[in-house]
């Protein structure tokens, strides 16, 4: 796999003086689904807008398919389809006209058969002659996706595709992204919904205050996610661990009033029964016990709080 998008030390300060991005370096591999997570105002839209040519880059360099986005903008932009965050439409146009317009704008020969297939896939075929002003919000969003895909891009940017979208459309959207991936399209999406990143992404990037603080394979993150721990509260505080408990990798917490036992929930053998037997044998009495799972959300929240 080669990098379809190469971002090198990208920085952006708006004319207001606000630094929206600082020193972002990121490679997106061809064919992957990359989710960009981050709170409001983190710089997700700014990053996407620069790659797509809507916002001027500050410092640094961006290549799309090996083409510099400034010097070789024709080649780079031709590879990209964008569904922006805001729902904006030419309200008096018909669905068919606006999608065909987008294809023309990207320099592609008219292909009614392809547009037909696209509209059918997005459940818009029945609405092809409807004016955009007559459509519901969810339908309008589908139209924006159809516009972005109208010129058969190799890279698709979805800026918060499922904000304000009902469950059914969200499922449809996820299914569509998977189909695109099967065709080899690279998808970069931003979202506030962690479950969405979990559901779809191959890799996850977390951006905070214009800095990319983590880029990780979802599988690796899921491993952290799969880690659980058992917290044991003791009747009597323990000043040191008896030798019989050493193999369990226990950690004393709360000045010996508690013990933490990490285990892998995906493992067949959690070791918990053996631990409990060993504790009883050592004469340690329990007041209470609970198990805790660290979710992607926990990881996300703690990262945002502390940074890395």
């Amino acid at each position, binding site marked *: 796999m080669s990098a379809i998008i190469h971002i090198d030390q990208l920085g952006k300060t708006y004319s207001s003086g606000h630094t929206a991005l600082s020193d972002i370096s990121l490679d997106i591999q061809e064919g992957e689904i990359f989710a960009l997570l981050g709170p409001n105002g983190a710089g997700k839209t700014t990053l996407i807008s620069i790659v797509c*040519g*809507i916002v*001027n880059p500050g410092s640094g360099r961006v290549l799309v398919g090996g083409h510099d986005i400034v010097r070789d903008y024709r080649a780079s932009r031709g590879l990209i389809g*964008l569904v922006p965050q805001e729902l*904006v439409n030419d*309200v008096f146009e018909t669905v068919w006209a606006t999608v*065909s317009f987008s294809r*023309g*704008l990207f*320099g592609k020969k008219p292909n009614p058969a392809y547009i037909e297939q696209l509209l059918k896939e997005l459940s818009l075929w029945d609405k092809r002659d409807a004016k955009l002003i007559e459509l519901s919000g969810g339908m309008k969003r589908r139209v924006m996706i159809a516009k972005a895909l109208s010129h058969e891009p190799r890279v698709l940017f979805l800026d918060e595709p499922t904000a304000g979208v009902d469950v059914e459309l969200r499922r449809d959207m996820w299914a569509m992204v998977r189909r695109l991936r099967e065709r080899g399209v690279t998808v970069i999406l931003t979202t506030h919904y962690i479950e969405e990143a979990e559901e779809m992404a191959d890799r996850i990037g977390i951006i905070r205050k214009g800095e990319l603080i983590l880029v990780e394979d979802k599988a690796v993150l899921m491993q952290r996610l799969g880690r659980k721990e058992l917290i044991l509260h003791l009747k009597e505080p323990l000043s040191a661990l008896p030798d019989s408990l050493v193999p369990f990798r226990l950690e004393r917490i709360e000045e010996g009033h508690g013990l933490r036992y990490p285990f892998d929930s995906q493992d067949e053998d959690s070791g918990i029964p053996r631990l409990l037997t060993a504790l009883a044998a050592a004469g340690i009495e329990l007041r209470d016990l609970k198990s805790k799972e660290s979710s992607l959300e926990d990881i996300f929240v703690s990262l945002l709080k502390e940074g890395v």
Partner: protein
Amino acid sequence: MNLYAIRAIYLFELARTWRTLLQSIATPVISTSLYFVVFGSAIGSSMAQVHGVSYGAFIVPGLIMLALLTESISNASFGIYMPRYAGTIYEVLSAPISPLEIVIGYVGAAATKSVILGVVILLTARLFVDFEIAHPVWMLAYLLLTAFTFSLFGFIVGLWADGWEKLQVVPALIVTPLTFLGGAFYSISMLPELWQTITLFNPVVYLISAFRWTFYGVADVNVALSFAMTGVFLVACLAVVSWMFRTGYRLKN
């Protein structure tokens, strides 16, 4: 050249005209007819000939210019201001199109409308007064040149404007007065000497004078100078537009 993109923008813009046909074509036709009823028939019948042309015929080129200038500017400025305002401009900015192609699409469509409008007014005028066109080829060439130049100027206005009022300001408060004072309804030789001199600073005088020359072969100011001034204005507008795109003025942050 991304010809498909130019075509897409051009047709999109013209489609907007067909949707608003009444406003785009009928309104100027009606107002021109009113000018003829008032100036041509009612007042003109008691006016002497100007430069050997009947007054009704004399005002035809000026009326066409008046409509051409105001409509070119408002059509072209609206055409680019609207997507900026609605946010749909994102698509044009993200597409593999050069600034020149964007300009050809938008300005070409606005100029096309203006030329159609000019011809419609010409035909309407013919219903009211009798006239002949001395230099039809030059007439058409000048029509195209001014339509394109002022559509380009309108495009700049549409990029510059950051509110609906500003969009109205230029055609209503600058171009219309300059046209009225620029000899649309009189020959500047009818003015006192001091005013003649002052009037020469009004650029619209050169436009109307040259256009009238293509009809009747008479002009208030040198025809070559008029063509040259229009050309210079065109080049100036091109320079401004290219600067705007280079810096992303009002288009990109």
